[in-house]
Every structure is written in structure tokens, then in C-alpha cells.
């Protein structure tokens, strides 16, 4: 399954400035692994020491927050967009 990952500004130093990266995987966890293989260092920025998504990182598959789905086990599909978004303050 090929998915497009949208990279937020703070992570673009790791992706050589690229705003999107194409990787493959069948779950969000696999996508993060593939992302880290392609751009070493990105994994530890997204996941904490126990392999969980860091508390200030939000990950969406298309428009769905993975915390409303199955977290890192959330399935992705061919052509899906995975967005990584930092938390935003109040309004």
C-alpha cells in the first residue's frame, strides 16, 4: 500500500526539506517504520521510548485522528494521506 505522508515544518530538516514523502505500509505503525528507514531519525521524533506516539504529536489518516481509531494499528489504504501535525494552542 503506497501512502503519502505530509511532513510538518519542524520535521522537514530530517526529510531534506520535502513537504511530502511517499512510503508503503498497511498500518500507521508500519508507515512510521518505513518513514524512519527512508529518513533516519524521524521515528524517535514521533515515538517515545516505549514505542508510543509522543503526547504532542497528532497523526491523521486522511481526515481521521488515529486516537479515534486504533492508534498505530490504524489501517492505511492505497492512496491514503497520512498527516503529522503538532498540537496547537487554544482559540
Amino acid at each position, binding site marked *: 500500500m503506497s501512502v503519502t505522508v505530509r511532513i510538518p515544518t*519542524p520535521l522537514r530538516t530530517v526529510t531534506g526539506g520535502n513537504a511530502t514523502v511517499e512510503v508503503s505500509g498497511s498500518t500507521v505503525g508500519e508507515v512510521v517504520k518505513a518513514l524512519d528507514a527512508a529518513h533516519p531519525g524521524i521515528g524517535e*521524533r514521533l515515538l517515545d521510548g516505549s514505542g508510543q506516539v509522543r503526547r504532542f*504529536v497528532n497523526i491523521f489518516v486522511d481526515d481521521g485522528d488515529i486516537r479515534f481509531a486504533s492508534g498505530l494499528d490504524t489501517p492505511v489504504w492505497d492512496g491514503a494521506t497520512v498527516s503529522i*501535525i503538532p498540537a496547537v494552542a*487554544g482559540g
Partner: protein
Amino acid sequence: MSYVEGLRCRECGREVDIAAVHVCEFCFGPLEVAYDYRAMYKAATREQIAAGPRTIWRYAPLLPELPGTDPADRIDLGAGFTPLVPAQRLGEALGLDDLWLKNDTVNPSFSFKDRVVSVALTAAKRLGFHVAACASTGNLAHSVAAHAAHAGMRAYVFVPSDLEPEKIIAAAVYGPRLVSVKGTYDDVNRLCAEIASEYHWAFVNVNVRPYYAEGSKTIGFEIAEQLGWQLPDHVVAPMASGSMLVKIDKAFTELITLGLVDDRPWRISGAQATGCAPIVAALKDGTGLVRPVRPDTIAKSLAIGNPADGYYALDAVQRTGGWMEDVSDHEIAEAIGLLARTEGIFAETAGGVTVAVLRKLIQQGHITPDERTVAVISGLGLKTIDAISDHVGPAYTIPPGLEDFQVALNS
């Protein structure tokens, strides 16, 4: 004079130079302004503050005013130094002997957001931005649009399309590019986080957030100064992202550090609507995990389902021995009426949440009658008329005759 040293990650402590960035490149934690407190200690005296303007800028040495900013360059509509009023009648109704209200309904665009926006846009201007922007549940849109108009900046404000019509109009009137987004506030926020990566705009609550958030400290500074440079026993504050509560707590800590008040304990408690209470839930279920929710409440100004500062709000409440509660839409509407009838302050739904939670905390024994308690009333009731339109109205509707009036009066 600026005492800003740079930015520091609240999670991992990494340091970054002054810039329009809000997230640590390493761990995604929020960046916070780092100050030279030693130098600030010498500059920030009670006398100097008292001699300053009757706005948030009287506390300029304690705010992230960037190096080289001339006071004349501040984007200042006169936010802050709002009344701290003794609330004897509301106190009697709730069973408190020493209740005070921080009346932030009287800010230039009628909510506490003017504090954060004045600080954020002043920093943004210094950082070279010409466009102001925000994701908003209403109040922030009003404030950004108003301050941008005053400063001659262009403004883009993004709001959820289901916002109260009066809130949309009260933003549009200042002439920003108002973008109505079909989604929740959290959807708008997410969109703005992505837009902020693509455009060189000052999103006050995204890329300029470290400066923005510091503006809320002025609520805490003012409470202490207005109590005669003393900290209260207890503060009750509304929580959306949780940032305001966190910054009031930080303000008290800083006042002690700077020797401006005596070191003594205080407690801080948080208020949310039951229809959007992810931070309260994290405290009550004992997990300390803030799980996002899909908001469903009339308190739209607090309807943030994914609160960025939730963890820090939890820390502040637990560290100080405070508590959190949530209240129903019915309780919110009732509390808006109670506040207006007893104290003459007409609050929007967030103020209803705060007063209703205050009542709950007293009933539960989390606040004792003799505690000097301050409730933060963060925005004006005219912004959310719908919330109470079914609850209040004319006592009599009569033809314009004296006899008609007398008949009605005696009926």
C-alpha cells in the same frame, strides 16, 4: 528592555533562538519563552509597575517583548488591567465569604484574548510579519481582527462554520479575510497548522504561540497587584486548551521568584463543559491521559476536543492541590443568569462554565467558605446571546398606557 533569552522546549529542554516557531524540532514539545530572571529581578519592581500604563503593558519586563521593540511599536488597543471586583452577593449565593471576579468581559474586543493577541502581534511585527492569522472558536478571531485593523496588518481568521452568528459578525466587522471552515475547531486547528507551514503569516496560536501564550500571565499579575500584591488562596479558571490556567499559575510562580509577592501556597482549579471535558476526564479517571473528544456543548469558546496544554493544566491543578469539574449546558445557562443577577456582569458561556464549576467545587468541599477565591470571567455575554435567550425575557408586554402598566404590575 527585553529579558527574553530565546525559546526552550518544555518537554526536553532544548534551546532555540528567538523566531516564529512553536514546536521543538526534536520531540514536538511546545517551545516556551526563556527569560533572564536575574536581570528581570532588578528591573521589575512594584513601583515601576504601578507607574506603568493601565494595560497589560505595565508588566512589559515580565512579557516576551523582543529585543529592540520600542514601546511605541506595541500593538495595543488597551487590553488588560480589567477590574477585580469583590463579589459579595454571588459569594452569599454560593456560600463563599471572600469571592472576587476578574472581569475580563471589558477588554477591547470583550474577552481575555486581547491580552494574548496584543503580546503575540507585537512580537510578530518585530519578527517581520505583515499578515496576522488565527484558528478560532470566536473570541480569538475578534481580537486578532481588531488588533490587525488597528495596526494596519492584513488578517486571515479561520473559524468553524457552526459558530454562533453573532460571533461570526463580530469578527467580520473588523474587515479580516474571514474563512468559515466546515468542521469542528479541531479541524480548523489542524488546517491552520498545515497552512502555517506553507505561508509566511503570523498565526498567533500556531507559529507565534510561545509569545502569545505568555500574554495570559497578565491575568495572574493583575490579580496579585489588585489584591495589594498578595496571592489569593484559590483561582478558578475556564479551560479550552488549558493554556490560560497554566499561565496564571506560572504568573504566581514568577511573582514569587521576582520578590513581588510573599511566597505562600495557592490552589488553582479548572472548569470545562461536560460536552467537552477531556482534561477533567484525565484527572477524574486517574489515568492522567488526555484523550481527545468530539465536542458537543453550547460553550463553543471552550470546545477544544484536543487540548494542547491539557497535560500542563493537569500538572498545575494537581501540584497546587486544586481540582477540576465539568458542568452541563443547563447548568451553564443557569450560572450566566446567576452571575448577571447577583453581580451585574454578563458573561458568555465560558463565564457560565466557570461560575457553575465554582458552585460545584464549593458543594464538593474542594473550596472552603473562608478561602479568598478568584473566578476568571473571560468574555462578554453579548457574544453568546442564544445560550440564554430561552431563559430570560420581558416580565410584561403591554400597550403604552399607565393603566395597562398598573394592571400588569398587580396581576
